[in-house]
């Protein structure tokens, strides 16, 4: 009895499937770019996170008063120009006229004031609020002029205003306590159309964007693809037009595809093996020097980080403030063994090497480090921890001996160096001279003047080795041949789709 029913059900389902296939409409040809994003941003609110993915995504949605150009130089954006007073205590910004937010509100000085008030408001909980703490007063003499009063000369302030966390929001919505995290409203080149968590972020062109003729794309589909292999296959088959952070192991496959081109550039990352200087044994500079001598830096860069350039101090390779100290501690296992013998450190001392398990390159590097350190006679145990544990135990509480991490580049060197030399930083390296120089460089203006101070800081850090400085890694971006002018903002590593075109 049951058989005929089953048969009919199958038959009907097959027919339905056939109809479905035949009536499937072909999508209309719009200039939509398919982009592979490595993970889901935690929020799209610029003032409530320090997540890289958020800032990479919202670069297309919000604007800042100033922004870095492709050379890393800070140029006008929402502010068409600015002045700094003689005593460096008053900053005056003149806003562009005719800029409108996605909701139709016109940009005025009141929005800028409301935005900075929001960032500095404790209730917002902005992790970047401390960068704005020198601001003691905001005045708006007219609709398009904003005057910032600072309590002491603060050179790094401009960089903070040009970074994603200084994004300008409309006053009306701030007062209405709008949920910017899910429904961002800015002045940026694209408007959020939909965000399906862990799947897709769709942005559509802002037709009223203040840069004439831009953006050139109609739509961007950001596909959230954590699996490397999936984005690689997507690039080859054409489902994905652009993917960043291509792994070096995937290059040979992509290079054989005639439709894909690879763009290689230097990232602003400072890849390190961090050493806890408050550890009774690692306090001894000879042990830290031995660790530096034990690592074949170029090899680790090649294997774990898509290759790169060794650095030798705590500044990224392409930074204007970078100075070469790589000759101080070259790869020399024998010297490392000698130093360890002098310091009396042997197999009986176990060092725990903490690795953030969600960052595969760091885990890979950690495994190579362990092997290289074992070869000079150190006893290193790997401990994988999840990201939140890493942040709380390692980064905040400094309960570790060794760890592997990459420090992201900053527009201003103070962002990289502030706090080092004091117990505030997780390496617990105390050096009053370095701390004092970093503090002074913050108040001094002019590249040459600051560089003189930072040169000395970097030299002290290079010699005293609170880190094993590995290097700055290369970044490989893969784009299909029909895509041109996909840009990544230097230092901030954010995506800039404004000039991007699709043939």
């Amino acid at each position, binding site marked *: 009895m049951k058989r005929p029913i089953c048969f009919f059900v199958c038959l009907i389902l097959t027919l339905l499937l056939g109809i479905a296939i035949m009536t499937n409409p072909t999508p209309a040809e719009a200039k939509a770019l398919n982009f592979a994003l490595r993970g889901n941003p935690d929020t799209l609110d610029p003032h409530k996170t320090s997540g890289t993915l958020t800032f990479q995504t919202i670069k297309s949605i919000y604007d800042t008063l100033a922004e870095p150009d492709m050379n890393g130089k800070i140029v006008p954006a929402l502010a068409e120009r600015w002045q700094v007073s003689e005593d460096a205590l008053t900053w005056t910004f003149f806003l562009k006229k005719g800029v409108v937010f996605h909701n139709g509100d016109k940009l005025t000085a009141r929005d800028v004031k409301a935005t900075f008030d929001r960032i500095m408001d404790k209730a917002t909980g902005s992790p970047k609020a401390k960068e704005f703490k020198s601001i003691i007063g905001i005045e708006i003499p007219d609709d398009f002029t904003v005057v910032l009063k600072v309590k002491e000369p603060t050179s790094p302030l401009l960089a903070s205003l040009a970074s994603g966390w200084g994004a300008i929001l409309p006053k009306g919505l701030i007062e209405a306590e709008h949920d910017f995290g899910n429904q961002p409203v800015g002045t940026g080149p694209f408007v959020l159309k939909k965000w399906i968590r862990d799947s897709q972020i769709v942005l559509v062109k802002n037709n009223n964007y203040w840069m004439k003729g831009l953006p050139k794309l109609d739509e961007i589909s950001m596909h959230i693809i954590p699996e490397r292999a999936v984005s*690689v296959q997507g690039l080859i088959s054409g489902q994905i037009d652009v993917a960043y952070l291509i792994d070096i*192991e995937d290059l*040979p496959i992509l290079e054989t595809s005639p439709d894909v081109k690879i763009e290689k550039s230097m990232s602003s990352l400072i890849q390190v093996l961090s050493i806890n200087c408050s550890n009774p044994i690692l306090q001894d500079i000879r042990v830290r020097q031995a660790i530096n001598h034990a690592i074949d830096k170029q090899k680790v860069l090649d294997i774990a980080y898509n290759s790169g350039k060794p650095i030798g101090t705590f500044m990224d390779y392409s930074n204007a403030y970078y100075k070469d100290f790589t000759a101080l501690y070259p790869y020399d296992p024998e010297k490392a063994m000698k130093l360890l013998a002098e310091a009396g450190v042997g197999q009986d001392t176990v060092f725990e090497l903490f690795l953030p398990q969600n960052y595969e390159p760091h885990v*890979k590097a950690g495994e190579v480090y*362990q092997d290289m350190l074992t070869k000079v006679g150190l006893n290193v145990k790997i401990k994988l921890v999840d990201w939140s544990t890493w942040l709380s135990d390692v980064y905040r509480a400094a309960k570790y001996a060794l760890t592997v991490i990459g420090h992201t580049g900053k527009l201003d060197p103070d962002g990289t160096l502030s706090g080092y030399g004091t117990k505030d930083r997780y390496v617990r390296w105390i050096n009053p001279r370095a701390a004092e120089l970093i503090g002074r460089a913050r108040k001094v203006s002019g590249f040459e003047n600051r560089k003189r101070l930072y040169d000395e800081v970097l030299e002290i850090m290079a010699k005293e080795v609170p880190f094993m400085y590995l290097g700055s890694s290369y970044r490989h971006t893969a784009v299909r041949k029909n895509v041109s002018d996909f840009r990544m903002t230097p230092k901030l590593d954010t995506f800039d789709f404004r000039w991007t075109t699709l043939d």
Partner: protein
Amino acid sequence: MHTHRNTIFYLSIIFLVILGAAAVSAPLIAPYPPTSQDLGQRFKPSSSAHLLGTDNFGRDIFSRVIFGSRSALLVGIVAVSIAVTIGTIVGLAAALSRGYIDNFLMLLMDSLLSFPTILLAITVVSFLGYGLLQVMLAIGIIFSPVFARLVRAETLAIKTEAYVEASRSLGSPIVKIVYKHILPNILGKVIVQCSISFALTVVIEASLSYLGLGSQPPDPSWGLMLKDARNYLVQAPWMAIYPGLALALTVLCFNILGDTLSEKLNPKL
């Protein structure tokens, strides 16, 4: 048909014996230390120097597969022992006491059973911390209800048999009855269940290691090897094939063993 089945049964026994022997004598068989890296020999396919090729750190895959069998079997033995011990004690206590204690114990076991296995394993491991020892404990706890239910049901059936009643009326202490009559009678079913649980244990250990909760790098574990291999499926498929094959064969053999034993020990079915 039957001889064919027997052949498969003996083949799986042979495989498991070889595996056990390899695990025990791993340092003698493995041509390289399992964690030593040779960065000049990365991603090498099978050759005479490296029988099953090398991985992304130039480690010998053959050595790692052999050493990986240690953690797989060790977890299996320890976890199943824990499960059998807890399960038997709870099952016996429940069946012999009946009443409130029985209800309470079985409620506890049933609530453990109602969780999806992997989810429960992840929960337990995140409480206890990552590592092989914690994984053994977690799996042991998770599998104990299966044994508790089995032991309880069998004990209840045997308890009412005439010879148990007789022994009891002669004044034998309960411990003696358990030892002399109950345990020997349920042993067969427990062994079958052990074999099936063993297969599951190996899979769960691999899954937890794959998720980064079990064995920690650079220790060799099949799950961890598969995790590493995932990124190099196209360039170096052998990184995934061999540990995957070892895992699949081990599980298959334990399942065949369990099925066959079940047929042989419980002829009624």
